């Protein structure tokens, strides 16, 4: 028998990936190729000129750093020392940079670093809102499969209200109402009638698709000008900050919905784990009977938080229409609600985690787009798999077992 239960799974994975990176991106490709990275955007404070690096040696260097980190992980596992999240993060970054260097080698177009990050955030926005909704619902004990429906309902109402009022901000206020309504239906059926929460969620998604598509084909299409030409939310540039290279365009040159997203993540992260409201909600999701015995109204708590969760997802729905400046379209959320659900689990039911998981997915998705743009030999259908493969890899390789709120999905009966 070897030393007890020390797990070498992660170090082995790191080593294997590092090695693959070294061979695949570094050693095998021909030498003499160059990769250009573009950093700056026109409005930046100062310009960082696109710079070119020799592809092969750069990839080798990054891979070697990754391998060194793998060795460190082995050592730490042996000594039973816990290394923080920085290790997987830095490791991932190194492998990624090796990969980017390899994939953009000798391309006519440079690798647009800022655009890559900007797009990642853009694609992540609805996922973040969706998973935050899931976080709220599940912490109070309700499984929210209806995120997709909440996003779609939010997108719909935001478009209609913004069009009617000629004010995108009005749409932003309306969207949460639509999402909350879906949340209300969910919690009503789940709590009052004790219907299996997954059935309700799945069915509500269909219901929302049905209702919005119906209204779209009838009302919205017939009178497009009056109903479905939402004005776009303006981009609010934060003075000075928005002109910092890379960070500025990514973080500070956004519409209000992105700022709201960060605000909601921070507020929820704090409130969920530090406030009375959060404590009570989590108590209800973990052990409703215990909550009941200290005088917390279990079902009322579930109701409120599921509705609130729905509202947050609804707000995320506004992203598809008023924030993006698009008219509503049938089923325009395209399955993002399910990805959001996955992001919530991947983020271990925490707002912070949801943000990171959504960003990971957004990044993988946008990487695929950017590679498509600068030209890639891989067929489009296979490229489109990237974000899903990345997510599976993340959940299987990095995250592993995680624990949902203990009482989710179970109706509370005294």
């Amino acid at each position, binding site marked *: 028998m070897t030393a007890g239960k020390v797990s070498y799974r992660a170090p082995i994975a790191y080593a294997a990936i590092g090695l693959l990176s070294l061979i695949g991106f570094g050693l095998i490709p021909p030498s003499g190729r160059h990769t250009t990275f573009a950093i700056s955007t026109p409005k930046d404070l100062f310009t960082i000129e696109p710079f070119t690096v020799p592809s092969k040696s750069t990839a080798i260097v990054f891979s070697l750093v990754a391998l060194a980190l793998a060795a460190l992980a082995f050592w730490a596992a042996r000594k039973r020392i816990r290394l923080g999240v920085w290790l997987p993060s830095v490791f991932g970054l190194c492998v990624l940079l090796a990969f980017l260097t390899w994939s953009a080698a000798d391309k006519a177009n440079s690798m647009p670093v*800022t655009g890559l990050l900007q797009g990642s955030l853009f694609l992540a926005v*609805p996922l973040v809102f969706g998973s935050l909704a899931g976080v709220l619902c599940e912490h109070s004990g309700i499984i929210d499969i209806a995120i997709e429906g909440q996003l779609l309902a939010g997108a719909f109402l935001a478009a209609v209200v913004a069009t009617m009022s000629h004010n995108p901000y009005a749409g932003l206020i309306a969207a949460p109402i639509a999402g909350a309504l879906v949340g209300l239906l969910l919690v009503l059926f789940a709590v009052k009638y004790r219907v299996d929460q997954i059935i309700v969620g799945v069915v509500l998604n269909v219901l929302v698709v049905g209702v919005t*598509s119906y209204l779209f084909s009838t009302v919205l299409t017939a009178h497009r000008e009056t109903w479905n030409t939402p004005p776009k939310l303006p981009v609010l540039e934060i003075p000075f900050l928005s002109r910092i290279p890379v960070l500025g365009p990514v973080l500070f040159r956004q519409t209000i919905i992105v700022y709201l997203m960060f605000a909601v993540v921070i507020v929820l992260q704090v409130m969920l784990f530090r406030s009375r409201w959060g404590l009570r909600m989590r108590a209800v999701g973990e052990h409703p009977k215990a909550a009941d015995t200290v005088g917390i109204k279990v079902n009322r708590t579930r109701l409120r938080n599921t509705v609130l969760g729905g509202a947050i997802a609804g707000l995320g729905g506004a992203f598809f229409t008023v924030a993006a400046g698009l008219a509503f379209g049938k089923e325009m959320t395209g399955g993002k609600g399910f990805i959001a659900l996955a992001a919530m689990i991947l983020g271990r039911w925490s707002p912070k985690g949801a943000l990171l998981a959504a960003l990971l997915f957004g990044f993988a998705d946008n990487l695929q787009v950017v590679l498509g743009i600068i030209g890639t030999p891989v067929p489009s259908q296979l490229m489109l798999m990237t974000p899903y493969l990345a997510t599976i890899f993340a959940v299987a390789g990095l995250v592993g077992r995680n624990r949902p709120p203990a009482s989710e999905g179970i109706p509370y009966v005294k």
Partner: protein
Amino acid sequence: ASAPSSSSSASASKPTGPAFKACMVSDAGGFDDKSFNQAGFQGLNRAVTELGVTEAHAESKANSDYVPNIDNMIQQNCDLTITVGFLLADATKAAATANPAKKFAIIDNQFYDADGKVLAIANVKPLLFDTAQASYLAGYLAAGVTKTGKVATFGGMQIGSVTIFMDGFADGVAKYNTDNGKSVQVLGWDKASQKGSFTGDFDDQSKGQNVAKGFIDAGADIILPVAGPVGLGAAAAATAAGNVKIIGVDQDWYVTAPEYKGIILSSVLKQMEPAVFDVIKTTRDGGFDATPYKGTLVNNGVGLAPYHDLDSAVPAELKAKIESLKAQIVAGTLTVTSPSAP
């Protein structure tokens, strides 16, 4: 509103001859897909108003819906059933064989036998569009108008009726480059290897927006999105970027998406509405024949939409050159090829 008199409400049907029923089955995109289902459906509606025919229509949500929807149309005694898209080909063929007395038309599909030879079915009329011809002109146009030397195109899903646009576009740009010794670059599609950028579906407009933004970041200033409603996302991205133009597809986006009219350079027209209208009209008048209709620049079945507001952005000699290219294609001295061409 006031109540109509009871006599008029009793006789709602139009008094024209023996009733002719024209029907249509959409593919999974639905009739408001901002693309060929919608255009075809407009043709049907025009036939109802102008010819007084009766109609029935069924929207499909999935591949499994085609057979039952077509069958229901037959049960509805449709004289002519128009099916939209190659995915309905097998179902249409089966229904046509089982119901030789009924007439059918199918958009964007040609039948082949087991050896890959074109197959004619006596009661099915294929309605085909060689959109590569029109997008060839669009490519030439884009290459002539671009300031950055980069133009782009992307698709919804990688299927023939999408990539045919992209093939023509790429060839048009290439032609411009050879004619003028320039090196305008096409992002998002490589005709030779048939590889490029796709959003993966025809629903999620934000993906189109993101892809377009990627192109814009990479320096493209004219984009041809071949992705139905997802293309509107590209228009939104172009609007946000400021100096980027869009070339629409299928219909004239200047008309169908007026909120973006300021950036619509032109559109690659696929004239399904008149084609559908015509086939209904001739069938009603007893003139049905199964020879494929092929929309080309010759018969104006495909074409390039007017430049509208951006007319001034197109130099006169470029306009002239495009006209002459069109004439050459019409005359047959210039052929536009695509692996996906009908």
